[in-house]
């Protein structure tokens, strides 16, 4: 009897041990930051400091969308926990904050990490971890490299492609082609990328070139404007951050320099410029006639089902409806669809696979096609061109749905095409 008991208890102990080992094995195989009930998504972005205006609205709006999804039951039963870290636009801070996201917050993935130099400082480590690095907020073409950075996915088209699209548009628009053109840019990766795009498109005959360092914004751009004015520039292409655009317009107005402006899509948000110029009337007057590329359905198109629903969400949360909040909701919306597409057994590999194989089914207000495959992580493939009117609205130019696209930001030539975004999902849920 005693012997039977011993044998039995041994058997029980063994089977418990086997079950325990099995459970431990399963836990080891699961990726960090995902459980039956929760997914942890992290991001780094400047919430304070000189680069924060506008950009800090992006994660705030993404949070609004995730709250909305969570209230509606989450994605495949999982609630989304979105952890936002302030890196002040300093790459050293980005390293610290990203390490925190990996080690302390145990994020499953990143979404919308912002800044070229910032992301360059951490992209190797993120890829080494196998962590999905989804829809980064930088247009530097270095990240569009599926071989080197297999877990990194750009979203908006690269600055190089933007410069190529601008070149194409200028050359093929007689009014602009005949103008004396000049180029002003922010020193560093941002401006260099744009410069490389113009070179690739064969646009090198600038009448003058000027540049600025981000720290010099507070001094005004007197010398730069004087230089371009002296060169007789009639069309000025500008690649800089939004606060720099505002100061450039202010200095140009003071010195009565009135060229046609063409400004990068990331540096021309009217509400931010209005804040810096003091009034929206001043901003509207300064921006009247300015050309700018864009890759989303016009923000003012309130009849559009994306714009109307996203605007309602953003404003109900007490945020301002502007390009950055629009963009933040868009990022969160597309990311949620990718997570849904990865299925109920969510893994990092599964998410990356879903992005690479199913991106064509994702709905978004992007007005250009998305190109994500196992060999190319390009993201959005082009732009439409618009002109600001006297009411501060970016009015789309060209034929209906006309877009300028390139299948590869570096090697392909820009082509004209048309694209209509597909209808959104029901209630804008993933």
């Amino acid at each position, binding site marked *: 009897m005693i012997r039977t008991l011993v044998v039995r208890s041994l058997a029980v102990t063994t089977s418990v041990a086997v079950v325990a080992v099995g459970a431990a094995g399963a836990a080891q195989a699961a990726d960090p930051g995902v459980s039956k009930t929760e997914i942890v998504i992290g991001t780094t972005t400047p919430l304070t400091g000189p680069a924060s205006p506008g950009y800090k609205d992006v994660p705030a709006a993404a949070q609004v969308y995730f709250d909305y999804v969570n209230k509606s039951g989450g994605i495949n039963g999982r609630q989304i926990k979105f952890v936002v870290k302030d890196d002040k636009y300093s790459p050293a801070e980005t390293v610290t904050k990203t390490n925190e996201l990996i080690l302390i917050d145990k994020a499953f993935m990143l979404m919308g990490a912002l800044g070229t130099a910032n992301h360059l400082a951490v992209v190797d480590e993120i890829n080494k971890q196998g962590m999905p690095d989804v829809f980064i907020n930088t247009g530097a073409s270095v990240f569009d490299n599926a071989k080197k950075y297999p877990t990194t996915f750009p979203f908006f088209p690269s600055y190089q492609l933007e410069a190529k699209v601008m070149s194409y548009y200028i050359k093929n628009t007689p009014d602009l082609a005949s103008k004396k053109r000049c180029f002003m840019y922010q020193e560093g990766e941002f401006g260099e990328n744009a410069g490389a795009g113009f070179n690739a498109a064969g646009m090198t005959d600038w009448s003058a070139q000027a540049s600025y360092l981000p720290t010099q914004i507070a001094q005004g751009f007197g010398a730069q404007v004087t*230089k371009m004015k002296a060169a007789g520039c009639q069309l000025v292409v500008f690649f800089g951050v939004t606060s720099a655009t505002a100061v450039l317009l202010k200095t140009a107005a003071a010195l009565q320099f009135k060229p046609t402006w063409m400004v990068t899509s990331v540096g021309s948000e009217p509400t931010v410029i209005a804040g810096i110029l003091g009034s929206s009337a001043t901003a509207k007057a300064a921006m009247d006639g300015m050309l700018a590329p864009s890759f989303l359905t016009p923000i003012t198109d309130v009849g559009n089902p994306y714009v109307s629903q996203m605007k309602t969400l953003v404003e109900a949360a007490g945020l301002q409806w502007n390009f950055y909040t629009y963009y933040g909701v868009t990022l969160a919306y597309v990311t949620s669809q990718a997570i849904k597409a990865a299925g109920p057994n969510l893994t990092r590999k599964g998410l990356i696979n879903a992005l690479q194989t199913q991106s064509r089914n994702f709905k978004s207000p992007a007005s250009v096609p998305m190109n994500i495959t196992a060999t190319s992580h390009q993201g959005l493939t082009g732009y439409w061109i618009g002109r600001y009117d006297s009411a501060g609205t970016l009015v789309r130019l060209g034929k209906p749905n006309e877009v300028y696209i390139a299948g590869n930001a570096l090697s392909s030539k820009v082509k004209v095409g048309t694209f209509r975004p597909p209808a959104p999902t029901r209630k804008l849920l993933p």
Partner: protein
Amino acid sequence: MDTFVNFFLGGFANGAVIALMALALVLVWRSSRVVNFAQVGQAMFTSFVGLTVVDLTGSWILGLVIAIAAGAVLGLIIHFLVMRPVRRADSSGAIIATFGVLIALQALAAMIWGGDPRAYPTPVSYSGITVFGRVIAITPYDIFVIVAMVILVLILTIVLTRTKLGLSMRASAFNPEVARLSGVRVSRMLAAGWIIAGMVGAVAGVLVAPTATLSPNSFDIFLVFAFTAAVIGGLDSLVGAVTFGIGTGLLLSLVTGYSDASNAALVALILLALNLWFKPEGAFNHHKARSV
């Protein structure tokens, strides 16, 4: 030629502001032998105070007056709360303390007014003047800035050379022991240096804010140029600070115009290096070389 004149004119107003910031550095150095890295933070903070007043009352002049008063109070507070307690430490301790003050002021400003750049209005037109049918690179506001700087420098010169306060300040800076024996309240003179420097910095801030933007970090770059101008001028010399402040502004404008912006910051570094190499006591300093 036209272009050269325009670069030159454009650099003048910026140079005037650099000159005022350099003056504020010199005033603190003369009174307490400390390089005040918090100077641009003080100017930024008082400019926000001024902007708040302008927003509330609509009066630009009242904004300036309150900003100057805030500059005096802030200078006094920093002197009593931070500089006096660390005065027994060596001079590097005091300099590091001013860095701490700079960071604290920037954080405080961000908490009160937010991190977004703000617009500061101008009291007179900010639109280029037309001469013989051509718009030149100087606006009525730039002229206002230059005139304000000249008036301020004149007032400072009179105060420092023709009044008892100025004499006592110079005496305490020159030889605190002898000054104390002669009945000068040396510690009060130190405080006076911080107060006057705070007021000058406040004027500089309010004058430069309207030409670009005002945010907690927006004046950081002026620290580099004002420091360059003050050091080349000899750190002790008001004339040196003004001369090289304006000179730096002109040079930056010419370098940015004729080459590009990234070289402008480099020029400040080269100037500083050449100065320390060939004339470490500074161009306008009558004393012997400083220890570095």
